[in-house]
């Protein structure tokens, strides 16, 4: 189950963060997303160690902890997509697929002429679309 998805701008500023937990604990997900930027930074700043994945937008598993996993995706404009899931056996292909859809939704949202680049995404339709993507991820009918 995806508990949180986030879009982080190229200056590491949060653009969109949506938690999918029922509890009122979004702040801890903020923390998880924020800290996972460390891993993205590390990978981006040390291309040597991640040479094979450098040209790929999908960063894979960032953060294997015992209880949740953080996946990352980095666009060419250095916008990061981050997904936190409590599913402990996620297939890379599923995650990749998820991010591709998420990216498409993001592109549509920021193409809105009323959206100010670099500012938080306030579009409700974007939120709805992301929710749909997140739900479809859980159902296993991705692709």
């Amino acid at each position, binding site marked *: 189950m995806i508990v949180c998805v986030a879009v982080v701008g190229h200056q590491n500023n949060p653009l969109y963060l949506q938690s999918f937990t029922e509890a009122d604990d979004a702040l801890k997900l903020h923390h998880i997303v924020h800290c996972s930027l460390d891993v993205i930074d590390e990978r981006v700043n040390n291309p040597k160690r991640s040479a094979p994945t450098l040209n790929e937008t999908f960063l894979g598993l960032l953060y294997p902890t*015992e209880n*949740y996993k953080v996946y990352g995706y980095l666009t060419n404009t250095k916008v990061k997509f981050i997904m936190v899931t409590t599913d402990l056996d996620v297939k890379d292909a599923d995650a990749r697929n998820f991010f591709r859809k998420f990216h498409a939704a993001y592109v549509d949202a920021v193409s809105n002429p009323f959206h100010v680049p670099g500012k938080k995404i306030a579009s409700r339709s974007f939120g709805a679309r992301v929710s749909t993507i997140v739900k479809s991820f859980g159902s296993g009918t991705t692709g």
Partner: protein
Amino acid sequence: MANYLAQFQTIKSSSDRIVIAVEDVSDLWLNVKESFERRVPVKKACLNNKARNPVFVDNLPAEFIQTTDSRLRSRFPQEQYLFWFREPYATVVLVTCEDLDEFKTILKPRLKLIVQNDEREWFIVFVSKAHPSNDQATKMAKKVYARLEADFNTKKRERCCKFDLHGPDAEFWDDFDSKMVDCIRNTLDRRVQFYEEEIRRLSEQRFTPIWNFCNFFILKESLAFMFEMSNLHEDSLREYDELELCYSESVTSPGKHREFGGLDTGDDQAALLNPGFKALTQIVQDDVFREFEFRQYIFACQAKLLFKLSRPVEVAARGHAFVVGFSKTLALHENSLPFCFREVWVITACLGLIKSTTSHYDGGAVSVDSEKEFHRLQGDLYSLCRIKFMRLAYLIGYGVEIEKSPVNSASLSMLPWPKPATWPSIPPDSSAEVMEKEKMILQSKSREKLFNIYRKPLPLEPSLLLREANRRRAFLSVGNLSELYDSADGSGLDANSKLSPNRSASNFMARTMSGPAMSETSLPVDRPMRLSEIHVAAEHALKQTISDPDFMTSFSSVEEFEKRYMELTKGAADNYHRSWWKRHGVVLDGEIAALFFKHGNYDLAVKSYEKVCALYSAEGWEELLADVLPDLAECQKILNDEAGYLASCVKLLSLDSTLFSSKERQAFQSEVVRLAHSEMKHLVPLDVSSLITFAGNAGPPLELCDGDPGTLSVAVWSGFPDDITLESLSLRLSAWSSADEGIKAIKSSDSHVLKPGRNTISFDIPPQKPGSYVLGALTGHIGKLSFRSHGFSQDGPVETDEFMSFEKPTRPVLKVRKPRALVDITPAVSSALLMNELQWIGLIVKPIDYSLKGGILHIDAGAELKIEESQMIEIENYRGDMEHASSANSSAEAGKVEKIPIENGKIKLPDWASDVTTLVWFPVRAIDDTIARGESPASPQKQSIVDGMRMIALKLEFGVFHNQVFERTIAVHFTNPFHVSTRVVDKCNDGTLLLQVILRSEVKATLHVKDVQLDLQSGFEHLGKGDGRPASSLFPLVIAPSSRAGILFIIRLSGTKDLDEVENADSMLNIKYGISGERTTGAHSPGPVQPGDSEELLFKIALRLKRPVLDPCLAVGFLPFSTDCLRVGQLVNMRWRVERLKSPEDASISGDEILYQVDANPQNWMVAGRKCGHVSLSNEQGSRMEITVTCIPLVSGYVHPPQLGLPEVGEVNISCNPAGPHLVCVLPPALSTSYCIPAV
């Protein structure tokens, strides 16, 4: 084969180095032992690794053991193969012999016997006892050695070397070492091959029933151990890796139930770095090792090798992965393990790894990357340890002491509770402890944050502990419990739901359930435990799990717990700071700060909190910032750090308004205002860039002309939740191009009240230097507090649609143009105006994109020019401008003429004229006191154009504060209407003169001459009526511009007055005329302008008439020559006739004698007769006489003839009629025949 395991272990532990057997044939060992053993460990050896590649090994440990030693003797051949790794790797045969025969007969057969065993790698050391001084013996030894070499060396391999007991021989030792290493290498190769084959054989049986992991393990580890002995650690490590892989496969394969292990005392302390923790025989069961111990064993072996390879970073990396992975494995077996065994194991494992890797790590030798990686891993280990530690602490009731921060919540609330088979029950006789825990729970209350900020604490538990614990007690049914606590919430009881909702209701219930302790000590079994009881039960169970008494002390009291907690947090933070993961480090700093804060260590807390806040605010994570910032503010408030506290309050206010309730925000504001009005010790300008932002208004920048003041209106956004009064406000403008230039504060003097949101504030701008200006900074005062904002763009309020993105470059708000012409004033006419008459001068006042509103025009007429102030000034639209003026501008009413007064030469321009080109007409009169003079052939005039020039100095003051001045001096040309010239057209015999007066129009206007009257000077008089009118009356006479007209007067000379008087007097010509001209083109009628109307004007001009100078009394006529031509030498008579034309009126010139004089050039003429003399001529008019003078021309050519002069008469009285010739032609003399005598 499993039986051999114990033996294998013993052998392995007893042999740790390569054995080299010494076959002491000649009892020499005691002699050489010392020097031989000095050679081990072998300094450098080249061995082959598993892939048969040469590897250089340093300090290869080896031991010499005599073949007679018990260690080598008592072995069965079967054992020898199995534990081949411990068998000698080389055999040194020590021999000596001093006699060749002895060698042949005894030694050689014996040696042959020894070396015939192919299995062994051997070489012979021949020890020469011969002293170097003893030549005989030396020679003999050489001989024997040569024999030995011949017998035992082969072409392929030399197996002999010679050792002189009495002579140091460096060469020998090199030889010895290389031979020894050769042997070791060969043996090693053979044994590796053997083991590999064995392993392969066993591997092939992998899936058969006879497969036995234990055997495989022994073989594999034997090989690994052999590599390890040979210092081939890499190969050894690889063997262990393969072994681990193989084990994982075999252990996961479905099969019979195996024991997991971990139930022994002390198992809770991880042994992942201690291979000898447990004997392998203890953990073997049915030919398979128990997973718990064996995995740790394998890891320990790997770690040992990695440390030997100086790769502590890899140990840390593998260790972290191992701990995480193993923790999962432990979770699978959790219900069979002691309570919280898993957590305890992870903590000890992490601490063990941290300790050993740190002690093996010397930061110098590794690259920056791996150093960072190492610290990251250390941080991870610390952090993992910390989480588990917190979990345990929470279970035993220290949860109330743990900060409910996002980081703790993220780690704990997603971490499932331990899942023991049954939750520990409360031990008997523990009522005191229960009371204590009860007290702790009751005493704890969430700390009240500053400003009464209340946030629901973040959960530290995946699901409610109370429910989870009771549910896991075997005898309580789930249904009961849910009814008991929360019948509405049935779904939350799913044990796997890691995020089961902690509704506030259930939370509340949970708190109330830990009410006052009941007095009874023994619980009825079916009563659910209270929270305090759960804590006590957990603590007791934990005590049983944990074998290390030191470990348990961490939970003995809050202080101990916090000490340990701090240690772990600090360890994690420090290591993260030294890695790439700065955020992790800073966040943990926040946890440290929270603890400092709790203990009143505010100085340290502030430092850490500041770091955290800086991190969050730099990247815009406002939600997280909003969580920490109030704590920082509180610390600062306690520390009396007013500046910091204010900055924090401002920051709090500038955060997204949805993050705090309006009440909270109001509290922030009132705090700021309170401080601002209080007596602050250190007045520091407060940076409110994020709170008060400003921007120029949308649209093009305000454009000002050089020198103009202006009003700049600036939008100021206030982030304060309420109105805020600013005591003053000023704005700095900075030049667009250079930063240092033109920075000037512009004050908006009056105090402002900023409403929340957008405010528009106008600033008066004094004149600025030309250039573009951008908004610099906004400064001002709230109370006594000065603040400044650079927040031109950042963090503008999101809700306004005019929100500025901070990527937008700052736009100039003010442009001050370079000095340029703002207005142009040109005279409307170029042609001349009438002198001495009232004339209108038109000025075209043309504003150039600039309003002339309120402009004042100063007109300063120069000398000889007078402005008729009695008249009104007329201002009208300039029509010439209307073509290109757009029709939209028609509001300026084309053709409108406004009359305005002129006072002291000043005109105030009407408002309607401020933006359009206007024509200003003002009346002047050019004054020329001199009387115009006419021109006559007798008195030609040179008229300079400058004479009619008059200068007008104009000065226009305009602009808002009349700061703009335009000055110009214009020249206007004035002239008389007519240019008058006279000439005498004809002179009649009776003395009548026809005087023509020619009038030439000087102006571009039609002149109507209505009447002309000539007042003659004395000496002249009119003929006829004598009224001075011209001869013919053709008036009115119309003279077109630039045309001429002539008027004829008939006059005559009169009287014989004094000649001088006649000469000096002037005649006056009075011309009455009218003019019809447009003032736009030039001269015009001085009166009101009405077409067709022409008022009568008078123009007076002086004419000086001269009496006719041609009034001779004598006429001299040159009479023609008598001959046709003159010749040189020929006499010729010059004859002049003198005639008296009139009788002399004056007595002075009367007389009948006239003096004559002939004037001739003596070179040309010879005058015969009298050159001068008196001739008589009667005084009567008409009397004439003739003067004849005979001359001879002397030269030929054209020559001047002699002239007759009358010296007494004066030239004026002589009329030459007919006039004498100017030149005469004189021919050369004719040829004289009289001198030509014919040549006869």
